[in-house]
């Protein structure tokens, strides 16, 4: 019941501010809470390369390493680029492919030996 008038009020507020507020609630990278607003804002500031946009917003840098956000970031970059040649490069896929516990990679012989 409350919803209808509230929504109408929201729609009357100036378009840009409303869209910024909505963009802040639209998560591109759930790992680091990077939002659609963050991507657009950083792009407008000048981070207009996949690798620098990544470093500015921390997309691709959380536990999922881009598995969730790659397609979304690609779409947003394509949209922000406008009609130009679409960006073909994505930030690199670094090893390991999935998070791995450090203990799983210990050379047992070296640690077991205990030599300091």
């Amino acid at each position, binding site marked *: 019941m409350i*919803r209808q008038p509230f*929504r109408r009020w929201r729609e009357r507020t100036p378009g840009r501010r409303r869209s910024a*507020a*909505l*963009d*802040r*609630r*639209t*998560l*591109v990278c*759930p*790992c*680091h*809470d*990077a*939002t*659609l*607003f*963050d991507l657009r*804002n*950083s792009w407008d*500031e000048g981070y207009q390369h996949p*690798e620098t946009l990544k470093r*500015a*917003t*921390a997309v691709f840098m*959380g*536990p*999922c390493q881009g*598995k*969730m956000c*790659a*397609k*979304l*970031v*690609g*779409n*947003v970059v394509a949209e922000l680029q406008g009609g130009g040649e679409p*960006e*073909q*490069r*994505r930030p*690199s*896929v*670094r*090893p*390991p*492919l*999935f*998070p*791995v*516990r*450090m*203990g*799983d*990679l*210990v*050379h*047992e012989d070296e*640690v077991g030996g205990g030599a300091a």
Partner: protein
Amino acid sequence: MTSAGEKVTFTFEGRTLTARRGQSVASALMQSGTTVLTRSFKYRRPRGYTCGYDVCGSCPVTVDGLPGVSACSTPVQGGESVDRERGWPSADRDVMRVSDLMAPLLPAGFQFRLFRSHPRLAHLAEKVMARVAGAGRFPTAEAAAATRTLTSTARPDVLVVGGGLSGCAAALGAASTGASVALVHRGPLGGRALARSGSAAWEGTTTPVAALAARLADEVRAHEAIDVLDGTALSWFETGVVPVVGGDRVVDMWPTQLVVATGSYDVPGLFPGNDKPGVVLADGVSKMLRVDGVVPWRRAVVLTDCERGDVLAAQLREAGVEVVAVVHQDGADGTLPGPRHLTGRIEAARGLKTLRAVDVRVGGRVETFDTDLLCVALRERPADDLALQWRYVSAGSPTSVAGGWSGAPVDEDGLAVVGSAAGWLEDDPEQARAVGEAVGARAAGVAR
């Protein structure tokens, strides 16, 4: 000793919960009414079950003192102690949720402007932020000690990474040529296909995909020439090694031929509130209903841009969930398949802590649907990470290689990509098997 499916108990934040041994921790928690599994990193937004396959990082819990364990992909063993790791006083009620209200002040990069003229304040702020950030605790040395492993080496003719429908078919194809085959897979062999609907052609008959995946998984397990490893491939490294980490061992694989059958990733939707608990990706929904056998939702809205929407709607109805709307994103104006189908876009996913309602813009108006599940069934993206790393190695650098936003099939000598990892739109196990046969023959040619 208990076997899979038997009733066991485990401790969750001091409470004793009952579950079936082998069901995922997340499904057991959701059965008990726990929908908020963690809090997000920066804004401390509530997060819940999302992808089902340990991809999204939205369900880390601490199990017996070890942080960062994926609740969605970790089976209940019985007797363990499970805690959520973020949020104070609890993940359900987190006072730091207030940071979300300050979001307009905290855009990405805000820290570079903060107190830049006051180094001492800046340093203090940094320390405070580090304490406040949504991160797991540093593990105890005892909990950490459990992770030690033993390393061995293997030199299979063919290494298949991914044991879904295509991976199993490719492994069987390669093994049929007399090649030695190793197959690496995380979780139950058969993979996402075990939870899928639909059918595929195999040996002259059309068979349901889920049943076929289970059958091929059995054949793979029974095959003498196929060594099955439960674990994950770390990467394709410069020297040609693919280390596999799983259980209590690391196996350094030096394959003659590599087959990438890593499948696909679900793609999230882009709309306000898209991270709320209750917004779940399609494969995560299928797995919860069909593998874990838990139905934690009553009503559902399905968002789709392809045929998966119908499939998921059918799965949900079959499980007794009321599908209140199927929203076709960017859909054509033509006839929609059913009365609850509509063309539009998600305006917002709403609900204070978990999903309560979805606003859908249809033409010029907005319709609100009360629901506790928004199933996102968009076209998947090939899981091409391993194939890309193959390219990085041949290029000598990871930064100059094009492709990979949405997947690029790669086929070079020594490498084959099959199934949805290669962008195949349909399940085609016979084609995967044929690729496996060719790769097996190629390996034999190299080895002998």
